[in-house]
């Protein structure tokens, strides 16, 4: 098993210019990103930058209330305004207009989710009417002139209250707020494990609702050509093909006459996966107006409508013996689903959560029950990590509590329960089979970097001086690279999760690669070009990558679940290898050799034993297109497409350690150190990997210390702007020390595991564990996130962590 260690302090991995890297070394090099010059000079093209001739602007009326009956909507004043092109409500549209849920569960209550609310409002982001006007401001002015007669209803926003008998019911026709009941694992075995274990430790944890906060608000421009019924949608999407498929049903437009294109996309973090009402409304508006229509959400609109993340209330119990052996884990979670079931929502608190509850540990028995609950908040769906941060938080918090309860060092308890590196693939009692791992290695490295042994002595001395420092660990596991279509189909997915990749030589020997993923900041153009250049042995600059356009390649599933490199990258590898195989036959023909005798290395075909009889792959490309002299059984041209469908997920892992100092008098938390040691398998571009870890950790620290969507008792979002919802600033995030080990994944040809979500999954519990450790002398065992100064102060003063 290859192991390579990279260490980096604040300065991080050093980059190199791609021009200075030999073709043979391009894979694995920390090259600069080719997307950056355009992003750095203002040349980038985000959706709202696109200005089509004769464009009109749309604005969407949202609800004043989180829960209400609609008695009437009067649009007459808006319609009468100068420069208003169109105003429409639910009664004006004659398409299905119902947003689908693409994941099913046995007990799932699927509910209608109309693109325009008809008679009932279920959350503040519900759309009531669309205005199309000549200019942006006029559209918003007109929205303000629409008069809605509401009958306000009581609202409910937290999942536990929503399960009370007297709670307001979000979907009246269902008669209950339970969206589903789901379980995994073996209840009887888990009961038995608890009966036999020396101890049982219980915790209650809240994983608060978060707003994803991509810096670019969602936007769409629809352009409709009546003469041939072609509809083009430029939009902020992480998965154009998925959007095309779903949208074609929602607005009843034939899929082959629909093009969805993602221009530059300014971050997503999950929030641009889902099919929202808005893109359908913009498409309908363009068809009605027969001219291009543009819409961009205001920030407040994104806060009211973007699918939020997390939202769990969990009680967990761990059965553990005196010697630290974990015997069993029992978990009961109420998961907030929001007002409707968003695109992949049912999968998030179930198959992306319950299946990860074994963490890095060998736990013989696990049982997990989850109730998905409708409430009057925006639909809750995937946000960076999606289910896996919630699982890791439960596991890593309860493992720390268990260590404290039995008086064992938390590192030792963890280590005691790791499976050995030779026990992989490792099956868990919650349906996963971990591909590969070496958990001691990342833990050792992280402890070494923070000088853990010395820390405990330092902590003792600090406490004597009245200073409170603490260390928090997070040994996380995640499943990503989503992944095997057959398996996800069995679990309820309404889609396959393969990925397609096309590799095409031009006659002059340059290469076009196209992938069905859709990057939005991850540097895919750079990494995919590294992958393809390496496979074909051509110059990195000779490879161009296309993504994010349903017209650019056959099909695709998009970017989420840290899947792009593992699944999309692998599709490109397979296509490149198919291209090489075909080129080998043509080269053999030209070299008058048997293909079996023709070797391929660094872009050159040569006859084994006679290296001077050789031909470059780029020359072969020309021959393939000239087709003057190619084998009879070979078609002209040189390209291949692969639909790569791996056999398993990939399972990155690592250890993150936070070291903090807490001032019990003010509740302030200062980072002394933050160390991240991750094993994401082979790394295509270590600088991009580092950036993903940094950004992921920042969002995890944000959850731990600052962020949370808050609603008042009427379901009104009170953190409705960036002045009220704390997106961490530069001064909030510590310098991190990142390091990695490399345990390649056996499930894909690149040996990569995926890195997009690792930091977000790992960080929150490292920070919370550190703060709880620091405040141990005050008897503090738990504080709810976000750990605001007030909550920390209260906890230190014996008022509990709940505010």
């Amino acid at each position: 098993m290859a192991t390579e260690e990279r260490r980096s302090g604040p300065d991080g991995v050093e980059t190199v210019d791609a021009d200075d890297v030999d073709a043979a070394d391009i894979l694995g090099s920390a090259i600069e990103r080719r997307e950056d010059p355009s992003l750095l000079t203002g040349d980038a093209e985000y959706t709202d930058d696109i200005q089509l001739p004769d464009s009109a602007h749309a604005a969407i009326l949202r609800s004043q209330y989180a829960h209400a009956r609609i008695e009437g909507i009067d649009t007459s004043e808006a319609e009468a305004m100068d420069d208003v092109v169109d105003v429409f409500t639910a009664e004006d549209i004659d398409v299905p207009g119902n947003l689908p849920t693409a994941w099913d569960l046995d007990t799932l209550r699927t509910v209608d989710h109309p693109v325009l609310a008809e008679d009932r409002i279920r959350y503040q982001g519900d759309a009531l009417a669309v205005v199309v006007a000549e200019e942006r401001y006029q559209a918003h002015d007109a929205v303000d002139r629409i008069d809605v007669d509401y009958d306000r209803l009581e609202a409910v926003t937290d999942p536990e209250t929503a399960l009370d008998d007297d709670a307001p019911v979000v979907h009246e026709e269902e008669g209950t707020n339970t969206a589903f009941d789901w379980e995994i694992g073996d209840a009887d075995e888990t009961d038995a494990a608890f009966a036999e274990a020396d101890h049982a430790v219980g915790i209650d944890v809240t994983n608060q609702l978060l707003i994803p906060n991509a810096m670019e608000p969602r936007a769409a421009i629809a352009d409709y050509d009546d003469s041939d019924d072609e509809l083009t949608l430029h939009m902020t999407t992480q998965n154009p093909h998925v959007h095309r498929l779903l949208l074609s049903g929602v607005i009843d437009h034939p899929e082959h006459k629909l093009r969805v294109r993602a221009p530059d996309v300014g971050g997503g973090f999950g929030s641009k996966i889902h099919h929202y009402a808005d893109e359908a409304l913009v498409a309908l508006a363009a068809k009605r107006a027969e001219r291009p229509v543009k819409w961009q959400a205001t920030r407040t609109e994104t806060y009211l409508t973007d699918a939020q993340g997390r939202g769990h209330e969990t009680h967990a119990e761990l059965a553990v013996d005196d010697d630290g052996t974990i015997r069993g884990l029992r978990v009961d979670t109420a998961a907030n689903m929001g007002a409707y079931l968003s695109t992949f929502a049912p999968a998030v608190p179930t198959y992306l959560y319950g299946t990860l509850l074994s963490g890095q540990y060998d736990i013989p028995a696990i049982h997990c029950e989850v109730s998905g609950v409708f409430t009057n908040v925006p639909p809750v769906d995937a946000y960076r990590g999606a289910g896996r941060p919630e699982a890791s938080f439960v596991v890593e918090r309860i493992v720390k509590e268990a260590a404290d309860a039995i008086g064992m060092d938390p590192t030792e308890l963890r280590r005691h329960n790791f499976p050995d590196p030779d026990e992989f693939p490792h099956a868990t009692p919650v349906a996963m089979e971990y591909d590969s791992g070496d958990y001691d290695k990342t833990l050792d490295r992280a402890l070494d970097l923070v000088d853990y042994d010395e820390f405990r002595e330092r902590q003792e001395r600090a406490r004597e001086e009245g200073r409170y420092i603490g260390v928090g660990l997070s040994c996380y596991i995640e499943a990503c690279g989503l992944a095997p279509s057959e398996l996800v189909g069995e679990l309820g997915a309404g889609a396959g999760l393969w990925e397609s990749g096309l590799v095409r030589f031009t006659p002059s020997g340059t290469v076009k690669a196209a992938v069905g993923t859709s990057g939005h900041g991850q540097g895919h153009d750079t990494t995919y070009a590294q992958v393809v250049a390496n496979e074909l042995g051509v110059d990195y600059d000779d490879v161009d990558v296309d993504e994010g356009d349903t017209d650019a390649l056959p099909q695709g599933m998009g970017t989420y679940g840290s899947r792009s490199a593992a699944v999309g990258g692998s599709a490109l590898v397979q296509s490149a290898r198919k291209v090489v195989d075909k080129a080998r036959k043509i080269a053999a023909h030209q070299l008058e050799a048997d293909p079996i005798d023709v070797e391929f290395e660094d872009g050159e075909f040569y006859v084994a034993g006679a290296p001077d009889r050789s031909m470059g792959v780029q020359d072969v490309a020309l021959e393939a297109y000239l087709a003057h002299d190619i084998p009879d059984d070979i078609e002209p041209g040189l390209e291949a497409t692969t639909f790569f469908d791996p056999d398993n997920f990939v399972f990155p892992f690592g250890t993150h350690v936070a070291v903090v100092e807490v001032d019990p008098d003010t509740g302030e938390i200062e980072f002394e150190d933050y160390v991240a040691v991750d094993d994401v398998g082979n790394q295509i571009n270590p600088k991009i990997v580092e950036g993903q870890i940094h950004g992921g950790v920042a969002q995890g620290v944000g959850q731990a210390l600052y962020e949370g969507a808050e609603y008042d008792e009427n379901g009104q979002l009170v953190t409705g702007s960036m002045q009220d919802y704390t997106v961490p600033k530069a001064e909030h995030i510590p310098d991190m020390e990142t390091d990695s080990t490399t345990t390649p994944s056996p499930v894909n040809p690149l040996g990569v595991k995926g890195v997009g979500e690792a930091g977000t999954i790992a960080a929150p519990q490292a920070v919370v564990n550190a703060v709880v450790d620091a405040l141990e002398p005050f008897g503090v065992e738990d504080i709810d996130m976000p750990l605001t100064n007030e909550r920390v102060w209260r906890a230190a003063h014996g008022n509990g962590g709940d505010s």
Partner: protein
Amino acid sequence: MEFDGTVSIEGVTMDEVWLALSDPVMIKQALPGCQFLVEVEEGDVDFDALAASAPDEDPPTLPEASPEDIAERAFVEGGRYAALMEISVGSVSPSFETVVTIEEREFPHMYAGGEGSASNSSFEMSSWMDLVETEDGVDVEWGAEADVFGRVAQMGQRVINPVANRVVGRFFDSVESQISDVSTDDSSGLRDRVSGLF
């Protein structure tokens, strides 16, 4: 959200404060951004019509007005009043079409409930007021409970609290100065006439 407070007014009597705070005209003038405040019948309120028919100039209030006239137009228990209130909140200035019902009115206690709606925001509120005699005047103890909805609510308490404080502060400043006029202007035996009303 909840607000409450106590405003102390020196050199005035309970009766004077009660009368002043019972006068819809004075309340209208004291409320910042209030375009009109008139009694209305049960049923839907046509704010456009009320705005059109609102007098350009208000009738006189204390001390110019006669206490008897004020008693005549004073709030009554069960009375329903409509007001148009323009309030600047952050970058927006919604005009709230507001309907208030005086639920309880018994000297020295008043309780009112109401709701207001603007294009993209609305509120529901109940408020109460008690007068308490002090050594050198009267304390007005007041409280309000409000639910805010829509665009204004999204701005959060960070924005709403200062606005509420500003409205309440200006209101009582204005009330205080008008009542002070009553107590200093005793030329016509106004104080006696006011106290004689109760």
